[in-house]
């Protein structure tokens, strides 16, 4: 898999710092499972976090803090689970939400050839899976906020280019696009939007409202 489109470094940094909410973090972590290059960016950001922790002026713990932790060291703790290899097209961080089998998802149809499956919404930011049959796509729209789309299977294209497995498309409010699934296997992607899309035309507007796009 060769990944051509990566999340912006500010997104990777907000994942590393913990500022990103769950919906955004799900998209970033799923990309990381597929992309060594971005894992290194996140690891360097976390090292910056470690360095800031090292340099922070300490705040004294209470007098009995150490004793209180000592008294808990022998409490039974959950066993450490190590990940086993799993042959799945679902990136590890997404498995907590949908399991291992991408074909087992209870898709909710939107229009012909297009279905979705909501995952999580935090602070008005929604993460959902979108499944588009070849040729199907989302009607022309612009955005009030940002939209990030991670391709899991298949590929899609729009005016900005072609996106395949592992790629993350980032769109900003100034872009109007009509993403359409390419010929081949169905295009399944993880889409995160921080504001409703703005559709052109009455019918897409209505459909968009009904399905919360």
């Amino acid at each position, binding site marked *: 898999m060769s990944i051509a489109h990566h999340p912006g470094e500010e997104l990777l*940094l907000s994942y590393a710092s*913990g500022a990103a909410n769950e919906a955004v973090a799900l998209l970033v972590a799923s990309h990381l499972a597929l992309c060594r290059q971005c*894992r290194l960016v996140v690891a*360097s950001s976390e*090292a*910056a976090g470690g360095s800031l922790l090292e340099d922070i002026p300490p*705040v004294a*713990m209470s007098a009995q803090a150490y004793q209180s*932790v000592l008294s808990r060291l022998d409490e039974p703790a959950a066993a450490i689970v190590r990940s086993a290899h799993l042959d799945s097209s679902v990136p590890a961080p997404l498995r907590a939400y949908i399991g291992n089998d991408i074909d087992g998802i209870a898709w909710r149809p939107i229009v012909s050839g297009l279905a979705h499956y909501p995952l999580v919404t935090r602070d008005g930011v929604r993460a959902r899976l979108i499944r588009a049959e070849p040729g199907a796509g989302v009607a022309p729209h612009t955005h009030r906020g940002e939209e990030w789309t991670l391709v899991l299977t298949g590929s899609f294209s729009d005016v900005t280019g072609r996106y395949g497995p592992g790629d993350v498309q980032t769109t900003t409010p100034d872009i109007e696009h009509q993403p359409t699934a390419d010929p081949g296997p169905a295009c399944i992607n993880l889409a995160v939007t921080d504001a409703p899309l703005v559709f052109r035309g009455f019918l897409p507007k209505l459909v968009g409202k009904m399905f919360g796009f």
Partner: protein
Amino acid sequence: MTLPSVDRLNAAICAIAATRDRAAFQIVFDHFAPRVKSYLVRLGASAPLAEDLAQEALLTVWRKAALFDPARASASTWIFTIARNLRIDAIRRERRPDLDPNDPSLQPEAERDAGDSLDWGKAEDRLRTALAALPKEQAEIISLSFLAEKPHSAIAAELGLPLGTVKSRIRLAMARLRLALGDSP
């Protein structure tokens, strides 16, 4: 009082993993608990909550010491990620989608399976130096990213800067940090 060196702290966590060494645990506790508490207070936790979570973080260090790998991250970086995740879980009450760095299904394969030669412990030393040498305006944004839980748009507003400027400073800073790691972009 001199601070324990990075190597000493790394070795202390390895000793906890190997022999459940309580003297080593006390070194780690004394050094990190007050820093974790400070980090949590900086991010808005009340003092009693920060105290509880700092204790919890150090208890996690004791329990998960076997997962610590000094070739992957220094003690402070590893403990930073523990504190960050505890905070998301306890204060924001959100799940943290996370990666197991040893997960064999990571692609391409997990770094060391691929025969990667990067010694992360050494690389972090260089990264620290690079961080200290960042131009002030870049360092400020990196530091705010970790110590003020705000989206970059809010940081931009607070500093009276266009969002584009904040993003480009982040990119410049990250490029320098990556260079320090010796990883070509």
